[in-house]
């Protein structure tokens, strides 16, 4: 039992804040190392690049946060991106939709796919892991079927491609969309009753029902939002790459989950913050980009910049393991020590 009555000391608050602080230090350390070792890491063009190449993952991580807060998981967002990208391509190139209308359709398709997840998880009460594993295959499979396995769509108008490759007010165009999504998710999670409900459901689904919360409706919202934003991310992805094909967003679900968990959100649900997710995403994105800038140093007889993608993946994986293991490890060590003292 916890002892009551002791006031919230600064250290107690420190524990709650600590994860984000540590993560911030990690990001700062990355920036420091890369600006020292990398070529032109802090140059304007490169900073833009960091975001340009990763906002899709960042957006998925943002909307994965509410899902994980409710104690669920969504493995299907990457596949959803593939399906939405393909649909977008078809709508623009074959149905002659305007890019804006097609983008709205893409978001709607994403929301519908999320709705399928929501129905199976919230209504039929099936385990999220397996449901979204199924839709992971289904969405990607539909994308492949629609493109007959290999077809891709390109030749989009310049005005549309600008979304992925131009700058608006000094920032990459897509970063503005990302900021809007981040703000929206932040407000949703931290300033509305929905966010409050996500947490309550993550901590105790039964308790939430007893307190009269609309458990099913809130869980559904989280998955539908995830699907819709995956649809949006697909449009941005197509604008950046200039091509719509079925393999858009492969593996993105894992990167998004990594960013969320790295950001301190408990995989069991309940606790976690949007700021943590943003920092988790930033840590991954900066790592990935920064290694590419280290062109003057070698590791195992190879330029680090040449193996940036593998190295950053490896470091991300290790970082994730350390982030997960550190708390229980410290707890076990602490109990060992206190036991040996007695």
């Amino acid at each position, binding site marked *: 039992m916890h002892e009551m009555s002791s006031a919230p000391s600064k250290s107690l608050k420190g524990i709650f804040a600590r994860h984000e602080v540590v993560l911030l230090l990690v990001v700062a350390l990355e920036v420091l190392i890369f600006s020292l070792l990398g070529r032109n890491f802090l140059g304007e063009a490169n900073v833009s690049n960091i975001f340009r190449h990763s906002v899709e993952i960042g957006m998925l991580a943002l909307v994965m946060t509410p899902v994980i807060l409710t104690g669920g998981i969504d493995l299907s967002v990457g596949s959803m991106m593939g399906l939405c990208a393909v649909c977008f391509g078809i709508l623009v190139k074959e149905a002659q939709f305007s890019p804006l209308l097609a983008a709205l359709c893409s978001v709607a398709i994403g929301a519908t796919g999320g709705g399928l997840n929501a129905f199976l998880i919230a209504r039929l009460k099936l385990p999220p892991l*397996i449901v979204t594993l*199924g839709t992971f295959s289904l969405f990607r499979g539909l994308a492949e079927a629609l493109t007959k396995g290999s077809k891709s769509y390109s030749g989009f108008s310049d005005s549309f491609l600008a979304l992925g490759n131009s700058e608006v007010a000094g920032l990459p165009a897509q970063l503005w969309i990302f900021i809007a999504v981040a703000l929206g998710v932040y407000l949703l999670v931290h300033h509305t009753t929905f966010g409050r409900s996500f947490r309550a459901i993550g901590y105790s689904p039964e308790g939430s029902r007893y307190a009269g919360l609309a458990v099913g409706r809130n869980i559904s919202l989280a998955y539908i939002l995830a699907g819709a934003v995956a649809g949006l991310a697909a449009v941005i992805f197509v604008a950046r790459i200039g091509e719509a094909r079925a393999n858009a967003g492969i593996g993105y679900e894992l990167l998004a989950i990594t960013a969320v968990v790295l950001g301190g959100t408990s995989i069991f649900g309940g606790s976690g913050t949007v700021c943590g997710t943003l920092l988790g995403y930033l840590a991954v994105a900066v790592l990935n980009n920064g290694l590419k800038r280290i062109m003057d140093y070698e590791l195992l007889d190879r330029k680090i910049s040449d193996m940036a993608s593998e*190295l950053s993946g490896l470091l991300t994986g290790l970082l994730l393991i350390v982030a997960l293991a550190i708390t229980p490890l410290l707890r076990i060590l602490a109990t060992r020590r206190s036991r040996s003292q007695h």
Partner: protein
Amino acid sequence: MMRKYSREIIVAIALILLMLALAAYAPAYFDPQPLLSRFTSQAPALVAAIGITLVIIIRQIDISIGAQFSMCAVVAGVAAAAGMPLPVAVLAAVLTGAVMGAFNGLLVAWLGLPSIVVTLATMVTWNEALRLWQQGRLMNLPAGIQWFGLSQSAGQGIVIGLSVVLLIAFAWGMRNLALGRYVYATGTDAEAARLAGINPRWMTFGVFVLTGALAGLAAVLNMVQSPQVQPNAGDGLELKVIAAAVVGGVAITGGRGNLWGVLLGLLLLVNVNPALTYFHQPPYWERAIQGLVILLAVVADGLQRGKKVKHA
């Protein structure tokens, strides 16, 4: 008894109907040589599926199994390329798998971390380490490795034979060995298992180690089928075998399922593609159909469970 095996029966019926349809409309499917080749190429997945089944029965998940598979394949390939005899290469692969499994097991069983994130992290780690190490290169194997240095048909026989023997051995063990009971008991209710004198931590750890070792063995069975080692041979394997287990009636909530169901599930899933081909349907529907089959299986589970809860 009928109800207990209802899932296996349904999947078996689906499989038989598929086979009958193929026999009627595309008898070429049953031409022995391509049929044998198809079975051989799926045999490693069967071995990996045995591991994942145990993991799911004990109420965990391992999505790093594909990465383990790739890593073990490369380790075995490097050993073989360095001129070591095949048994040594096999041992190296199995040990590598066991060590990677032990790492998962340690984090899950002793630190109490959720297996889904742990194995997600180890999956990323192994895959990227592999890319760093091999840079995506294909590795040529020395002569005498492909098909164990025997004729192709003899090699195919060994691969299929070994996989089937392993399946029978594990299916028998899960049913008849006390250890099998421990796995089911732990997956059903770890606390009750503890009270019955079973150590759930050791059981969980052991199952992860075993799964890694089986992934290593599967990698070898895959390696001997071609003159080269692909450094990403295990990509997507985790989803294939988890799907096979779910379709085969292994409950994701632990404690339920058996390997014969998984065999049927795997057969059904891997035959989607050849069936499409032989029916002259576009093969790119494969993944969508597989996804649909998985969803159907989960929904069926959910409905069945709902009924039982009401009943209780």
